[in-house]
């Protein structure tokens, strides 16, 4: 069993089977489309722009309004009249409404909504809505978008540049002046998204008597979007209730971007006076939900001949599509604290431009920005190894942050809490039998086969510190007295004991398949001397009843660090209360007592004890028996936060996440030169995520994350033609890996417990999604090294690779 070995009697570290499975295996999960929480909901069908860029001249809705079952139609005019644009994360005056008002800026942008008695009727009428457009020139290429004569999407901005920051850490110019070796390379990273199999879904009800807007949706957080949406709709925050059903059909970051639709469907409910339900279809999801950015990166690396990296320069062009939607430009700045990855170089320049083009909008996608970052960095490390004549493992080892340097402050402000990077790399090499692999490669090459080995290392950040978003703003702007600094990452849990001693835990973490109920039951069972099935875990977010804050939700791998910490802390608080109560009943000082095996006992082991059930019965039935001043309730709420979550400083340094795991991977591949297909021969991934609470669930996250990385590296791309029409609007064209494409994976763990979390755990939900593009590109490049081919652009499709092979072979 991988992970930290569990102490006797401990549930933490055990592969406890999931409590969620019972309902999900029987088809009795409660997903957004399953159990209508309100009667007589009408259905929405969204009319979307067929143009990538067009001025909206007007709407003819009379015919559609007269169709059977139609209750109402909302157009961009209503949106402009009745809502405000969403706040954006940059100072550029981008007006982003929940639907197009004057202009459509990407294919699929909502322009109107039909509300009808059922979905069939709504779709009929949506086809009859006439929107008059004046097509405008289109730009989809981010470099072209910045040329002076390019079509401009937002006239108020004046150009397509949504934001630009030049960040300087240390003295990069000197590092490059001192360098014995300078390497430069351009990379392209594709636009792809994790396409959860359950699409977006929303049900909105407007109660005009109480003025309360209730929205059920498969929104995953962050709940900063709650106040942002309330502002857009002009509803007081405490009159707007977000409820998330217990089951979400996957998200991987994508469902954090549902919030503009929440505003749009809520507006429909408010305008029509009926509850409105909208379930996105797959085509809508592919053309208009969310994805990561496509990026053009120009990298430079300065090093000494011995392989020591002195500094780097990153020049990025991130394409956020038609509007910059929050939390973008997280695409550039989410990894600020771990920009340097696992390496100890001190000098870095980052020149990040965020560009708007006529493509769909972007946002968090599993590994948010880290897949891009490590694809570039790890390719550069291989280029350095080749240049100085070192083995790729050796060049990395020479630059790793040493184990005795933790906790380690990176030049960009990151605070790496724990780790042993060299040991983790060594473990990966050992499991992969690296030397043997190299011998096999030599044999294969001698036989004319294209076999290669790739390595990739990554610092795996979890629990975003909300403060990182401010890196997008100039320090002068942040220095203004009216500017409010931002920081933090918190989560809460409540544990309560009923009159018969039964334990219930209440969470609001919006799980999307990560088994939170199971994990929390393990943690609380350990704390209170129970078995996991004895603990009931309710994990349903409701902003009216849960303790929450702007950072709440399950994203950036935060549950494994912050939700688990809150659950353990709440149980400990309650346990302390039980001890105090028993001390009062036994008339002994609390220090003489301990909580052991589900009862409060004397530390000496002698004398009477009070079981939880006994104490619960007394406390509920006989409050007079409580000590003076004790709150008469057997429940405790803990809100866990990180003190290392601080605002960005004047030098643009920020600890952008709160815990930092580590990943070391080795992959061997063979490329068939005739078909340009890639076969994975061996894939080893070693993770350090601190204490592993449930190794079965942890491994599941790694398998899933790796396949998302594989999709982006080999198959998935949201492709557009020059007119901004999307070419991959179905699952026939947007290729998602199937079981046949999934490689065998050798998974191992190293455990460096985090000193910052209650249980020593760190997040690992994003895991290998951020390393597979890098390790695969490196392995394929190594395989094709005899032909002089270096992979600098993803996905590595046969259509992209085959011409390179043909050309190289023709030359050779």
């Amino acid at each position: 069993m991988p992970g930290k070995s569990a102490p006797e009697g401990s549930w933490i570290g055990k592969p406890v089977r999931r409590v969620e499975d019972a309902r999900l295996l029987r088809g009795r999960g409660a997903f957004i489309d399953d159990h209508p929480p309100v009667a007589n909901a009408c259905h929405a069908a969204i009319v979307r722009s067929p143009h990538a860029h067009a001025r909206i001249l007007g709407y003819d809705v009379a015919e559609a309004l007269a169709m059977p079952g139609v209750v109402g139609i909302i157009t961009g005019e209503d949106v402009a009249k009745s809502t405000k644009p969403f706040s954006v994360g940059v100072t550029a005056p981008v007006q982003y409404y929940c639907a197009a008002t004057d202009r459509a800026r990407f294919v699929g942008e909502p322009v109107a909504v039909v509300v009808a008695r059922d979905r069939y009727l709504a779709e009929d009428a949506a086809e009859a809505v006439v929107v008059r457009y004046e097509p405008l020139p289109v730009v989809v290429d981010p470099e072209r978008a910045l040329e002076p004569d390019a079509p401009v999407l937002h006239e108020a901005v004046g150009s397509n540049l949504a934001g630009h920051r030049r960040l300087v850490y240390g003295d990069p110019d000197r590092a490059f002046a001192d360098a014995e070796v300078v390497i430069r390379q351009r990379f392209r990273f594709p636009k792809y998204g994790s396409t959860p199999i359950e699409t977006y879904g929303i049900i909105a009800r407007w109660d005009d008597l109480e003025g309360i807007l209730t929205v059920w949706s498969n929104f995953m957080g962050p709940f900063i979007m709650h106040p942002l949406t309330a502002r857009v709709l002009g509803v007081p925050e405490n009159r707007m209730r977000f409820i998330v059903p217990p089951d979400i059909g996957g998200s991987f970051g994508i469902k954090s971007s549902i919030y503009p639709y929440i505003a749009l469907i809520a507006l429909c409910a408010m305008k029509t006076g009926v509850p409105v339900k909208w379930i996105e279809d797959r085509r809508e999801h592919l053309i208009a939900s969310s994805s990561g950015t496509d990026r053009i990166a120009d990298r430079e690396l300065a090093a000494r001949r011995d392989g020591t990296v002195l500094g780097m320069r990153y020049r990025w062009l991130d394409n956020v599509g038609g509007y910059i939607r929050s939390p973008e430009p997280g695409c550039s700045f989410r990894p600020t604290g771990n920009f340097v990855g696992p390496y100890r170089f001190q000098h870095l320049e980052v020149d990040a431009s965020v560009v708007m083009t006529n493509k769909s909008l972007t946002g968090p996608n599993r590994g948010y920005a880290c897949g891009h970052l490590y694809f570039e960095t790890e390719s550069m490390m291989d280029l350095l190894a080749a240049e100085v004549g070192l083995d790729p493992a050796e060049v990395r080892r020479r630059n790793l942050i040493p184990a005795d340097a933790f906790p380690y402050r990176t030049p960009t402000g990151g605070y790496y809490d724990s780790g042993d990077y060299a040991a983790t790399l060594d473990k990966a090499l050992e499991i992969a039998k690296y030397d043997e692999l190299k011998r096999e490669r030599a044999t294969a090459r001698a036989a004319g086969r294209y076999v290669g080995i790739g390595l990739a290392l990554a610092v795996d950040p979890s629990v975003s510190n909300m403060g990182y978003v401010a890196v997008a703003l100039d320090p002068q702007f942040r220095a203004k007295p009216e500017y409010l600094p931002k920081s933090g990452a918190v989560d809460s849990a409540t544990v309560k004991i009923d009159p018969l001693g039964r334990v219930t835990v209440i969470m609001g973490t919006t799980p999307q398949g990560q088994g939170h109920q199971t994990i929390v039951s393990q943690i609380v069972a350990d704390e209170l001397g129970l078995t996991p099935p004895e603990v009931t875990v309710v994990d349903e977010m409701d902003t009216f009843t849960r303790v929450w804050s702007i950072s709440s939700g399950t994203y950036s791998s935060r549950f494994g660090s912050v939700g688990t910490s809150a659950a353990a802390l709440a149980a400990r608080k309650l346990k302390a209360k039980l001890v105090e109560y028993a001390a009062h009943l036994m008339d002994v000082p609390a220090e003489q007592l301990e909580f052991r095996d589900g009862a409060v006992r004397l530390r000496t082991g002698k004398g009477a004890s009070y079981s939880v059930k006994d104490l619960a019965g007394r406390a509920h039935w006989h409050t007079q028996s409580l000590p003076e001043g004790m709150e008469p309730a057997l429940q405790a709420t803990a809100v866990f936060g990180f003190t290392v979550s601080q605002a960005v400083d004047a030098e643009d340094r920020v600890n952008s996440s709160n815990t930092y795991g580590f990943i070391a991977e080795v992959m061997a591949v063979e490329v068939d030169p005739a078909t340009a297909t890639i076969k994975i021969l061996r894939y080893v991934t070693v993770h350090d995520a601190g204490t592993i609470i449930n190794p079965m669930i942890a491994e599941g996250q790694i398998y899933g994350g790796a396949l998302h990385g594989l999709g982006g590296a080999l198959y998935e791309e949201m492709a557009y033609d020059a007119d901004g029409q999307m070419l991959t609007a179905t699952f026939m064209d947007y290729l998602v890996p199937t079981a046949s494409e999934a490689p065998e994976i050798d998974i191992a763990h190293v455990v460096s417990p985090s000193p910052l979390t209650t249980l020593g755990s760190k997040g690992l939900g994003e895991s290998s999604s951020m390393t597979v593009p890098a390790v695969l590109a490196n392995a394929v490049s190594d395989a094709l090294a005899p032909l002089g081919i270096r992979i600098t652009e993803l996905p590595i499709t046969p259509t992209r690779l085959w011409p390179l092979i043909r050309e190289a072979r023709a030359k050779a």
Partner: protein
Amino acid sequence: MDKNETATVKLTVNGAPHEGRCPPRKLLVDFIREDLALTGTHVGCEHGVCGACTILVNGEAARSCLMLAVQADGAELITVEGLAKDGKLHPLQQAFHEHHGLQCGFCTPGMLLTALDFLRTNPQPSEQEIREGISAVLCRCTGYHGIVKAIAAAAPVLKQS
């Protein structure tokens, strides 16, 4: 026939007879979910690729998003709700539980019924055959690892029964 007129659909679902009226254009999956209130069958793409809506129609796996309800008139359907018997999970469901063959559970109903049909035609599959057999269903959580293990583990149990 007008698209909003209704037709009668009589069918057997999980052994029980059902009768309903719906417009002839109504998808079978919508009929199952809305008219029969069996929400275990999920809709993932509505164009027959993701496989989440897979059910058994007269014993064979079929995508209920690519059929009209009226086409299933007279048919015998098995949906995910029909797998567990007497409060006990079907051996395939049990194997999914033991081998972590699901995370979010959204593709799971389609995956289970696809695997069931596959094991009927190939009761003793190799791992590669399992992978190909379920490649008609997309899962984005598990990387398929636990699913493949679960199907391999369930195969001998099902062969016996």
